[in-house]
């Protein structure tokens, strides 16, 4: 705080005035965020609960009782849609598990063990991000075909895990560095092996970073369009994003209200994830270095 600046608020406002201005600004900002952030989700929800004939003909704002319906959600039990969503869930869970396990072990190695070139190793990992998924996807099609992973969910899980890996490894590495090594040393003194120390001391303390890495992997898997489009050419193993595009191309008529019902079903898991995990999540992302 420099001495030359006058005490009090900005623009010559008094403290009280400044506080009032700040509160007002905060309120307006919150309103805008609510509007911009929640509005598309609201719009999706209201269309999902409105009769599809009405949605096709007119602009609706709220599903009033005469046009309210839950019948749009019957599209979820359509075998095709069900398969797409089931595949997406399997791929997302598979990716999360792989990413968390591999990045925890690697993060521990980078943080606690000394081996040559480890910083450079971590830097080189990030170069992978310089290649567009579309660029990696096309050669991967050939590689997966020759080793028999093409069209399998495992193939997509491996691809997506590898893509979220560099970032997750960075996250774990930096997070484990913030845990004092003394905690493990205490365990070692008591005769624990390195593995025991890792399992019983480090992993429990890593919970926020695990959740953050899991969320990153989840977002990637849940979002993915490019890899799934290229690597899962058959319909029965494909995930939601390319599946729905193909369904839209083939179906004579797939009403918007149905699409919104499906979209809502795919939005709920992330919303719940974000609501219940956010404090851990934010703690996990408190690493400053990349």
């Amino acid at each position: 705080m420099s001495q030359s600046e006058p005490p009090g608020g900005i623009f010559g406002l008094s403290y009280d005035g400044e506080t009032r201005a700040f509160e007002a600004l905060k309120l307006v900002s919150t309103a805008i965020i609510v509007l911009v952030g929640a509005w598309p989700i609201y719009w999706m929800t209201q269309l999902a609960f409105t009769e599809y004939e009405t949605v096709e003909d007119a602009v609706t704002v709220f599903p009033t009782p005469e046009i309210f319906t839950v019948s749009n959600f019957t599209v979820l039990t359509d075998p095709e849609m069900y398969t797409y969503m089931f595949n997406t869930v399997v791929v997302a869970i598979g990716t999360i598990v792989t990413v968390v396990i591999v990045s925890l072990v690697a993060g521990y190695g980078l943080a606690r063990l000394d081996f040559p070139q480890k910083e450079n190793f971590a830097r080189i990992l990030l170069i992978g991000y310089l290649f567009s998924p579309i660029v990696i996807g096309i050669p991967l099609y050939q590689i997966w075909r020759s080793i028999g992973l093409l069209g399998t969910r495992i193939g997509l899980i491996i691809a997506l895990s590898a893509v979220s890996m560099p970032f997750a490894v960075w996250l774990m590495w930096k997070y484990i560095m913030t845990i004092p090594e003394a905690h493990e040393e205490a365990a070692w003194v008591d005769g624990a092996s390195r593995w025991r120390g890792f399992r019983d001391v480090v992993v429990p303390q890593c919970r926020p970073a695990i959740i953050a890495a899991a969320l990153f992997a989840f977002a990637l898997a849940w979002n993915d369009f490019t890899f799934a489009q290229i690597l899962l050419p058959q319909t029965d193993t494909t995930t939601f994003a390319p599946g729905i595009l193909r369904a839209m191309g083939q179906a004579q008529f797939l009403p918007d209200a149905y699409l919104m019902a499906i979209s809502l079903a795919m939005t709920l898991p992330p919303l719940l994830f974000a609501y219940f995990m956010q404090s851990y999540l934010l703690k996990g992302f408190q690493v400053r270095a990349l």
Partner: protein
Amino acid sequence: MASETGESIRPRGTYIPWDELPVERETVVGVGTVLPVVVLYTLIAVFPIAFAFWASLHDIHTLNPEWEWVGFANYAEVLNISTFWGSLWRGIVYMVGSTLLQLAVGLWMALVLNRITRGQKLLTAVVFTAYLIPTIIVSLVALRVFDPLGGVFQMMGAEWFGLWSSQTAPLGSRDWAMRLLILIGSWKFAVFVTIFTLAQLRAIPDRFYEAAKVCGANRWQMFRDITLPRLMGIVLVVVLLRSIFMFNKFDIIWQLTQGGPGNATTTLPVLAYKTVYTDQAYGLANAISVVMFLFLLASAIVYFKLFNPSEEVETTT
């Protein structure tokens, strides 16, 4: 690291044959921990990239597995195809435009979310959801609200603000397609910035602000001298990542406009995809992607030289 006597207290465990090797045991275990990463990374990055580079030296028809060696002819052709420079330019516009917008909006959202008292958890969840829902859903909703037949944003733009005529599909108009792509992409990805900066904001101890208040600092001074320096490190990293991701973005552009109208939203990834599947020129497409990579690599090196995000960060950790 070591106990006070200077002797390592790290556990050594039982004898394994590795101990005979001329390298430290710790090196072996350390390399072992990153081995799965190396294997995955080799499969998904090193092989495909090497493959792409090798393919870029050949003339390949997409549906025909004959590879004809042409050396660097594809690269000469890349620089000559009329759409290349335009696509590069549009890619830069998209990258810079959306990164700046996302940075501004993301930071602002984080600052507000950090300060509101009521409904904070719910609003944070709603904001985060934007980043977590599948891109395809964002596209579907966007296509619907900008549709001339009953799209509510299309209607507002036409009737309230007179931005376009009521028959125009804004996503199919030369003037609006790129701007809307930037806006829609930013709606989703600004949250990435928010998550990281909000995490940093939560990590600043309240006593810093209390101390500043006692010293008579106003809110702007507190922001400038406490908040901003603590955010700088992560902001530099996030800007780097977002720029790379936006430059490489394919899915949302393809889903919304397929690069059209004309070439108005064709960025380099879209051009590469079109070259593979429309022009059936697999070798040429790989040359485009290698050029893209080189461009990003050069930009990233310049960025590191200018700002050095990792060093910035190390000093504050």
